[in-house]
């Protein structure tokens, strides 16, 4: 056996690879996410045309599309383990913290792939290239980190409960609303040449706080 640190790193890497392999084989999440984002953006584009001068609507639309396209897949990464009865296997080979970090990294990767398709399509269809690419990408990155951290935590919290459906909404709302609010505010500000410092700080602090809280919680989440 390796020492604890390298053993945890190996477990995290193994879980990340396993998640990618499973997603590649089943296309469980990415197909639905891309279908949602592409149809939504195309529909809005047909209905209202270009929105290049409406930074407020652009910001809200971008984050609503990203949130709803990704939420089901991100928060169900643990539920799939419970429904497929593979959580016992995971618990026998890795610590809860390693499992959660592996899932979080996969969720970040998932969001990255989704954004690679969705964001260029959004910018083209809406006719709204960001005035400052650096700021836009920073907001996208931090917003994605906060979204992935929050939805991973929601998924872990609801996975072993009986009434997952109702709990999902109840737990998601308070955890995801601050992310959405800060991301929309920041994205709107960058389109109107305003300051994005406060939303960026908020998103970074929130992502770090949720990740830290998750690391403290995960070891106790799956104790029967």
């Amino acid at each position, binding site marked *: 056996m390796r020492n604890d640190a390298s053993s945890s790193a190996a477990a995290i890497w193994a879980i990340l690879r396993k998640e990618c392999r*499973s997603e590649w084989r089943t296309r469980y999440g990415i197909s639905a996410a891309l279908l949602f984002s592409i149809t939504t953006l195309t529909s809005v584009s047909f209905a209202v045309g270009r929105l290049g001068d409406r930074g407020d609507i652009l910001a809200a639309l971008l984050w609503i599309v990203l949130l709803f396209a990704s939420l089901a897949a991100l928060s169900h990464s643990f539920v799939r383990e419970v429904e497929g*009865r593979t959580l*016992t296997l995971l618990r026998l080979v890795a610590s809860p913290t390693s499992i959660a970090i592996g899932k979080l990294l996969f969720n970040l990767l998932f969001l990255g792939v989704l954004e690679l398709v969705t964001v260029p399509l959004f910018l083209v269809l809406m006719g709204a290239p960001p005035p400052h690419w650096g700021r836009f990408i920073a907001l996208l990155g931090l917003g994605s980190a906060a979204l992935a951290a929050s939805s991973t935590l929601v998924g872990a919290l609801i996975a072993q409960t009986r009434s997952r459906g109702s709990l999902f909404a109840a737990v998601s709302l308070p955890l995801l609303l601050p992310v959405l609010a800060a991301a929309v505010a920041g994205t709107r500000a960058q389109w109107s040449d305003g300051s994005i410092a406060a939303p960026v700080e908020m998103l970074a602090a929130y992502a770090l706080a949720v990740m830290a809280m998750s690391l403290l919680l995960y070891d106790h989440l799956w104790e029967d």
Partner: protein
Amino acid sequence: MSAGHAPAAAVERASRAATVEVRSLAHRYGSRLALEPQTFRLESGITAVTGANGSGKSTLLRIIAGLLRPSEGEVRVTVDGRDLEPGERRGSIGLATPELSFYEEMTAFENLEFAAEAHGLAAPARAAREALERVGLAQRADDRVGALSSGMRQRVRLAFASLGGPPLLLLDEPGSHLDDEGRATLERWIALVAPRTLVVLATNDEREWRLAERRIQLRGRDLGHPA
């Protein structure tokens, strides 16, 4: 089938000595008593845990494996004299239980390679191949688990339990779904590892509990007693 040629790495790791000490251990699911108070100590060899359905055999194994926190009492698992906390036991325990499922979209080999890699074994691919050979499943290593029969899935569970040669093996109904050849393989494997591994079998099958040197009989309150 390779019961006769266990890998060197497995033999080396299994040479670590494990003990299990159970003191006044009981467990409840809600108000129902699932496991009546138990006290025993296991130091070596093969032990069979028998008892009627619902008497707590699987619950006992889950508690020893560190997957379930007991309602009362305590379990101490030591390896080479060192106490292992429940969260530390996964590196020293091989568990095969009917509730253990694998990723159906992945092959038997990929599942075991993933498990070996996450376990931190030095050569995961080799460990996975050897484990599949050990249970006679090398020919079907590249079949997706979803395409395997229930007997073959049971062999994958046994292969998983054997990964890396853990010093403590917890086998819950290990012969279920196995054909005659599979049972013979299982018996040869248990006989091979028993001299240097603490083996606990939860079973009501006489062919399995007769392999054991000692027997712990659990008595469930709700469903009567075993014959």
